[in-house]
Structures are given as structure tokens and as C-alpha cells.
């Protein structure tokens, strides 16, 4: 089994430890991981702010880059949602037949991380060890666009030593919303405060999710407020073993 990793622009720059964890995890499960150096961005930031033409050019690059990949795994629900929900509209509007065909062929081969593990590899127990109290935050893209459902819970459930605490109001948005976090910074912060209340009351050491975007927002406030909790991408929990505990930065 061979898979190509699309690390995403922001993980590459801000959360390389998540990428390292994905590689370690997948190789441990016997998957050969390749990484195509031409990758940059899926175009989500531009598409969601109204820059369609720009998003299209990035989307085109991505589709061409992975045309012959066996599978593409992406540790970011929002980027997968971009590809699944918005690419075909962009290609309808701005692309041509050839591009649309290429995309149609690629689409079934694109996986969010938990989808890859559960649906493609058929594993729930990835042999992880993470002896900490953890709560899980469901990103809106993972919840409503990808319908990840039980997958993250099934994976966390099999992590040895992990003490899971559920999060109240799980389906309520944390307030990140991409450029919304700065275009409507105050409203975003108000939503963050409400979310943080629910997260902190779990008493967990770590808040995890399948998206570093939400975690950056939650973790940034936790750090500012000396909240005594950290954020960590689920890939890092799943990659963690007794021999090689998770990289926890910051």
C-alpha cells in the first residue's frame, strides 16, 4: 500500500510535527509514504474569501500533481472538504473537460487521515500509547462536510493509556472560520471564549482534533490565558508509542 501525503500549506509551515507523526504512523502500519515536493496549497483560503480565480489555479496544480497517485492522505478535514465540495464547482466554472475528468478520477483517491485509517486500511487499533486525559474537538468540516462521524472516537478508543473525556456542545463551531478569525476577530474571539469554557471544563491535559486550524485558534487562547491545557493533532496521538512518545511542542 502506497500513499502520497498532502501536508497542507499551513501544516508545512506551522505544524511540521503533525506531518512527521503522520509519516511515522503510516509507516508503522506498513504503508509506504511518498511526498511530492511540488505541493503548496489546496486553495481553500482563497475560495472561502471570494478569490475564485486564484483558488482555481491552485486547485488545478493540486489535481495535476496527484494525477497518478495511488492515494492522497491529508491530515486536515477542511482541505479535504475544499477538494470534495468546491473543486468540481471551480472546474465547472473555470476549467475544461480534461481537467474535470482528471479531477473526477482523483476524487475517490483523496482521504482525510481518519478516513484513510478506518476506511482504506481497515484499522482502528493503530498500536498507539498516549497516557493522558484527552478531549476531542470536532471541526465543522470534519463533522458536517466529511461526516467523519464515529471514526475519530473509534481511533481514540483504542489508544492505550488514553483517558477520554467527551466535550459538551460538540457540534458548536469554535469560531476560527479561516479569515473570519481576523475579518471578524472580535466575534471569533467571543465564539472562542464560549468554546473554551466547554473544553476547559473537561479537565483534560490535551484537546485534540483532526484539524490544526481549529487547534491553532483554541491553543492560541489557551496559551494566552495560561489555561493549563494544550492542543495536539490526533495524528500525533496516534503516532505516539512507549518507545517514541508524541512530540508535544509549545
Amino acid at each position, binding site marked *: 500500500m502506497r500513499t502520497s501525503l498532502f501536508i497542507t500549506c499551513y501544516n508545512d509551515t506551522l505544524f511540521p510535527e503533525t506531518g512527521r507523526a503522520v*509519516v511515522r504512523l503510516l509507516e508503522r502500519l506498513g504503508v509506504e509514504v511518498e511526498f511530492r515536493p511540488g505541493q503548496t496549497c489546496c486553495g481553500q483560503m482563497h475560495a472561502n474569501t471570494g478569490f475564485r480565480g486564484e483558488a482555481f489555479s491552485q486547485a488545478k496544480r493540486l489535481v495535476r500533481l496527484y494525477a497518478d497517485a495511488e492515494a492522497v492522505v491529508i491530515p486536515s478535514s477542511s482541505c479535504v472538504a475544499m477538494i470534495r465540495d468546491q473543486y468540481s464547482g471551480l472546474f465547472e466554472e473555470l476549467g475544461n473537460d480534461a481537467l474535470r475528468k482528471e479531477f473526477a478520477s482523483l476524487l475517490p483517491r483523496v482521504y482525510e487521515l481518519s478516513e484513510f485509517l478506518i476506511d482504506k486500511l481497515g484499522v482502528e487499533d493503530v498500536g498507539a500509547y498516549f497516557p493522558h486525559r484527552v478531549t476531542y474537538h470536532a471541526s465543522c468540516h470534519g463533522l458536517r462536510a466529511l461526516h467523519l462521524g464515529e471514526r475519530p472516537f473509534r481511533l481514540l478508543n483504542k489508544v492505550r493509556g488514553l483517558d477520554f473525556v467527551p466535550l459538551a456542545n460538540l457540534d458548536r463551531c469554535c469560531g476560527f472560520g479561516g479569515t473570519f478569525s481576523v475579518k471578524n476577530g472580535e*466575534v471569533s474571539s467571543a465564539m472562542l471564549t464560549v468554546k473554551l469554557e466547554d473544553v476547559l471544563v473537561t479537565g483534560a491535559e490535551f484537546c485534540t482534533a483532526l484539524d490544526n486550524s481549529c487547534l491553532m485558534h483554541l491553543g492560541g487562547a489557551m496559551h*494566552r490565558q495560561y489555561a493549563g491545557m494544550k492542543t495536539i493533532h490526533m495524528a500525533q496521538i496516534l503516532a505516539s508509542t512507549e518507545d517514541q512518545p508524541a512530540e508535544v511542542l509549545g
Partner: protein
Amino acid sequence: MSAASEHEVIDHPILDPALAPPFPVAALPLLRNSQLRKNVAHAIDVIQAKRARLVAEKRDWQTLRAAAAAIKEHVLENLGVYLEQFEARCTAAGGTVHWARDAADARRIILELLRKEKADEVIKIKTMTSAEIQLNPYLESNGVRAYETDLAEIILQLGGGEPSHIVVPALHVNRSQVREIFARRMGIENLSDEPKALTAAARNYLRQKFLSVPTAISGANFLIAETGSVAIVESEGNGRMCLTLPRTMITLAGIEKVLPRFADLEVMLQLLARSATGERMNPYTSLWTGVTPGDGPQRFHIVLLDNGRSSILARKTERQTLRCIRCAACINTCPVYRQTGGHAYGSVYPGPIGAILTPQLEQMRHAQSLPYASSLCGACYEVCPVKINIPEVLLELRARVTDDERHQVSRFFDPIYLGLRVANVIFSRAWLFYAAQRMGRIGLRFFTQKDGWIHSLPSVGAKWTQTRDLRGLPRQTFHGWWADRQRRMK
């Protein structure tokens, strides 16, 4: 913002999209209003809990949604046919059908009708459409007093307030505020703030009006093309009073309210009350057809309003906006609305539906900040009974606003615009991306504290760092680590 101007914005919200401040600015003083926050959260939590219970017990909820969406889409596909059919049947049943191009046209038509009736007062059933066209102030300045009869609308009319929700417009007002308004404006001494007493005060205040004012104005929840009928959904009974007792009824309805057949109500009525108030059915729903001799108003006029709706119909992605049945389920579930309340949206239509409807009714000339007043969480789409994909429409409207901006000089002063244009170039080549990452790391070193975190950033970044830290850029990118690893493995 100074305390005085904050107070002003709270007490005198501007709900005219042409004049209202942009959403982020309008939201600011509201975010500081703890009472508002509490009132809004309480109200929407109550409705949401009731709605959730009823939706869970309704085994065909999803198929009802699908059918409602399909019926509405079908109507929009054939709107001309159904409007003409409605007009013919309503006229045959004794009603008079008028057509209004826009708000000004509608106001003029209604005033003329009132003048013909020699009416200097009217009683009104709550209709957001009349607020959309700013009817009451226009009538007032032309010598006609409009008396609102819906409890929430009375609270707002007597208190000089503005609606902040389309189903419970006064949800931002608490009982002691209502008590003060009623005591002062109704001239009641020793009025308690118990909701029961306040409601009784309203009942007494209105009884005489219902029995004496001969002209009423209503909106419409649904228009039935096959019969020319109008349906009104309500809880209090003030609607029944206004549509039964007066001599003349004037109904104002957006053209998108039409349904093909009477039986289509079997779908809509099952969805509306559950979505709007968390009830299996609201207390009173009334339907009338033209004029019935001996029963109800003997003169019936209906004003069919365009006011930008046909321009929405023309657009492939946006036309689904017109499916809306004004249930407010999207508003109740919206995490943004929860924090700001309705006045931040600068329109009589707040929340997710407001964010897509208002700019479009304004032909995208105003309210351009509204499509951005959303984190795109998608909760609204999940609850919409007619399956409007609100996030999809928001994205489409953002693209239109951006395309507009591309031609404005102001774009050179918009850091987000410039940043995204540059980012697009950066993302076009891997080497440019890598170079930008290196430059970014070097540049941000200046802002990175000893703990490895950034606590303060300039410009747009300040909006982030006002409440959040940002971890400093790691020394090595993922792709750098991978390249090293490849080299090591060889």
C-alpha cells in the same frame, strides 16, 4: 468606541442596509452587552431544545425536508406560471391583486389603498416584509397610524426598538424593560413585570382596536396558486383578529411565497412550526380565499412584492435563497448570531438567512460585509427545512463582493486583499512558497518572544493576537524535514 456611541448603537440600531455600519463594527458594542448575550442565548436555547426533541420524534423529518426543497425549487422554476395562476384565481375569488416593483412602489400602492379607504389608522399582523419596505414610518409621515398587534411588535413599536429576530423579534428585551415600556406608553400604574400581567395588559390594550379599526395589513406565510388563497401562521390570535374583524384587508407578500397547491401545505406546515417554535403545530393557522360574503373582510387587496427577488431568481446558485419560509431555525442555531444578536446584521433579516438575503435584495450594493459574517460552520444548512445550502450561497456572494473589489482603488489599502493576491503568487511555485516561508520565519522572529510564541502582531495580525497567541514558526518545515530524511536514507 466611546461609551456614549456604544450606547447609541445599542439603543438605536440601524436596520437599513444602506445606512448600517459593516457587521464587524456593528457587532462590537453588542458583544460587550452581557444582558443581550444572556437574553439571546436563553431564547435560542429554549427553541432549539424544543425543536430537537420534535425532530428526533419525527421519523420522516428528512423526507419532509427533501419534499419541501423540491416543491420550492419547482415553484422557482415555474414562478411566472404560478404567479399568474395565483393572480387569476385570487381575482376570481373577489380579491384585487397589485404588483410592486420595489419598496417604494409597494409603499405607494398601500398608501393609495388606505387613502381610498379614508383610513387614518390600520391594525397590523406581524410581517417582516413590511419592515423590509420600511412601511410604518412612511405611513406615519403620511398621516396613517399603524398599530402593531403582535406582542413582540407592540413592545418594539411602543419602546422605539428594532426587531432582532424574525420569529421572536423582541427576544433581546427582558421583562423589566417590557414593564417599563408598557407602564409608560399604556399609562398603567402598578404594572408587575410578570409575563402574565404584561400579556394581559397587551390583550386589554388591543381589544378595542381589533373591534374598531376597519382596515388591516398583513403579510403572508404562503400563497396558494391553485386557489388564490393566503395562509397565515401565528400563535397569539392577533392575526385571526386582524384577518376576521376589519372591513378591508391588505396583504403584502413577497413573490416567492407562492405554493402550487393547497395540499402542499401538508409538507410546509409540518416543517414550519417545528422549525420556528419547536411545536408540532402553532396554535392558529388561518387560510382565506379572496372575499367570502358574510365572513371576514369584504375588501381584499394583495400586493405582490419583487424588491430584488427576481434578480435572485436569475442566479443559479443564489436562487435557493428564495425557498426560505422564514422559520428562523438557521438564526437559532448560528454560533455567530448567538454572540452578537440580530442588530449586528443591520437588516430586518438577521443571522444566516439575513447574511444571504439582505445583500441580494440590495443588489449587492450594500451589506457587503454580511456574507463574511459567518465562520462557514454549516449548522444552518443542517437545520433549514427547505435545505437552503446557505454556506454555498455565502461563498458565491463572497466571490461577487471580491470581484467587485478587484475594480476598486480601495483594494490597495485592504491588507487582506493584498495578502491573498500575494499568497496566490507564492502558492503558484514550490520554490516561491519555500522562499516565502523562510522570509516569514525571519520576519516573525522579531515578534517571537523567548517562550517561542508570538504575543502581538501588527495590522491584520493584531486581530488574531488581541486574544490569541501564535506559536512561532518552527525552524524546519515539514518539507525540509522530509528532504533531510530522504538524504539520510540514501
